[in-house]
């Protein structure tokens, strides 16, 4: 009795969740890899060769990567002052409330939020109206349906996400560390450089990583704010599955998108592993 109560058999608890992941995630992924390698003349890399020799597809890949990197960088920069303010300038009691103020729109539909920016950015939107009200001149903004509008929309999302992960890291910093440093005469900038920044780094990196993943696979902001004329890869995937229905092409694009995530995430993953090793040593 004593022995059996100390060891819990994990499988009955784990199996349902694991089964769902295997059936609906692992097997489809393997299937997708096989599909992308299947061509009319058997197995091969023909689909990938075709992808990279089709300009409108490689341009879409380039756009996806540029968009994701720009939005992620902008969002991650904005996250620092926001998280820093909430953690170090707000009374401990009110911190969650301030965080909620930033995160609240995060809980609503991604599509609705992208759409609401149309109302602000369009040529007869709120900003144009406001400029006209002040200057008396009617202006053509020309922001909506450009790459910049997409970058802006996604950067906003990234800044919320990264603020959230960075907050988690900053809020768990032991305040005694900062007090000690200050008592020993450290200046605010040095406290930031030597304590707060390195301890916030894991949360920041996690936010950057997640932001990039969301941005590179997003179709809603590029469609609603960027327009359909210069599509990103996710938009092309959407139109293939609802249009031409070329399954091996869809699989190939999906694999290329996955590879992009892995390649861009690899430096971060390696960094995380090195860091863990250093901590354990």
């Amino acid at each position: 009795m004593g022995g059996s109560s100390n060891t819990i058999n994990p499988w009955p608890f784990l199996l349902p969740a694991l089964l769902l992941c295997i059936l609906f995630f692992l097997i489809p992924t393997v299937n997708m890899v096989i599909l992308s390698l299947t061509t009319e003349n058997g197995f091969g890399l023909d689909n990938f060769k075709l992808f990279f020799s089709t300009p409108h597809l490689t341009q879409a890949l380039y756009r996806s990567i540029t968009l994701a990197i720009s939005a992620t960088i902008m969002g991650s920069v904005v996250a620092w002052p926001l998280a820093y303010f909430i953690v170090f300038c707000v009374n401990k009691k009110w911190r969650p409330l301030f965080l909620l103020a930033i995160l609240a729109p995060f809980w609503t539909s991604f599509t609705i939020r992208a759409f609401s920016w149309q109302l602000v950015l369009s040529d007869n939107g709120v900003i144009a109206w406001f400029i006209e009200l002040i200057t008396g001149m009617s202006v053509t903004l020309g922001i909506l349906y450009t790459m910049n509008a997409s970058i802006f929309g996604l950067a906003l999302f990234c800044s919320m996400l990264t603020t959230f992960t960075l907050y988690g890291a900053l809020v768990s910093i032991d305040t005694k560390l900062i007090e000690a440093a200050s008592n020993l005469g450290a200046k605010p900038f040095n406290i930031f450089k030597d304590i707060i920044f390195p301890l916030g780094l894991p949360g920041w990196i996690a936010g950057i990583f997640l932001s990039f993943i969301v941005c590179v696979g997003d179709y809603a902001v590029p469609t609603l704010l960027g327009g359909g004329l210069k599509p990103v890869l996710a938009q092309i995937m959407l139109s293939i599955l609802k249009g031409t229905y070329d399954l091996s092409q869809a699989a190939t694009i999906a694999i290329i998108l996955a590879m992009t995530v892995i390649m861009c995430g690899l430096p971060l993953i390696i960094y995380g592993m090195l860091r863990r090793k250093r901590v354990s040593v």
Partner: protein
Amino acid sequence: MNGLIVNKFMLLILTAFFGLSLIVIYLPILVMIVFSFNSGKYQTLPFREPTFEWYVSLIADNSFINSFFTSLMMASLASIFATILGFLAAYAFSKAKVPAHALLFGIVVCPLVIPMILIGIGMRLQIVSIGIEPALWLVLLGQTLYVLPLAVINLKNRIDKIPKSMEEAAISLGSTRIKSIILILAPICAPSIFATLLLTFTFSFDEFVIAYFLTNFEVTLPIRIWTSLVTGFEPKINAVGTAVFIFSLTLGLIAQFILLFKQTDLDKNKA
């Protein structure tokens, strides 16, 4: 301690930046809400007479109402499934010796770090290649998979903080493992379980791409909204957006509130 790292000048700049960010974040949503009460077919300022016209036409529009109920059902079931599966898996990862722990945990959490469109497209290609017709039950399973990592991570955080001794005490007094989980562990985790339900509900309620790929004719609310946005402007879309915003916001805020404040309560009790 605040004064140690932020001088007055910095505080001013940071406060201003925070305020400005709030304006940027909320401006478009406020505009949408204002427009939802604005009469006139075109969404231009200045504001005309206020009207409830768009809300009335929204309630009268069966396609929106039906898709809302479809989404409601999908999200309720997906959140319940994900929370149950997530609780069981979190228990195993937290309290049992799981072989290849990192690998299995990675597999369960992986959907979180994969672009959602890839999960959707993978499932679509899979069902096509084995000849299953797209249907709502596939959407349900797909969305459960998508929100499962959230449930596992949330609940594991909570279960990790409960000492194993509590359960062991019950078992040494004659309870069974299952009984001790249901009667002791689950009630202790109740706030987290509730928050997880709400959280997974909001995520699956707003989920678009998996549903889009796995159905042909049954339409969830995000699909209905998307169709409306890409195929031409319907003025009542502002009213839809406002309604969805308030609905998801309420649920999401309650969940976030419980997670943030209950956690601080716990820490206080520990200290």
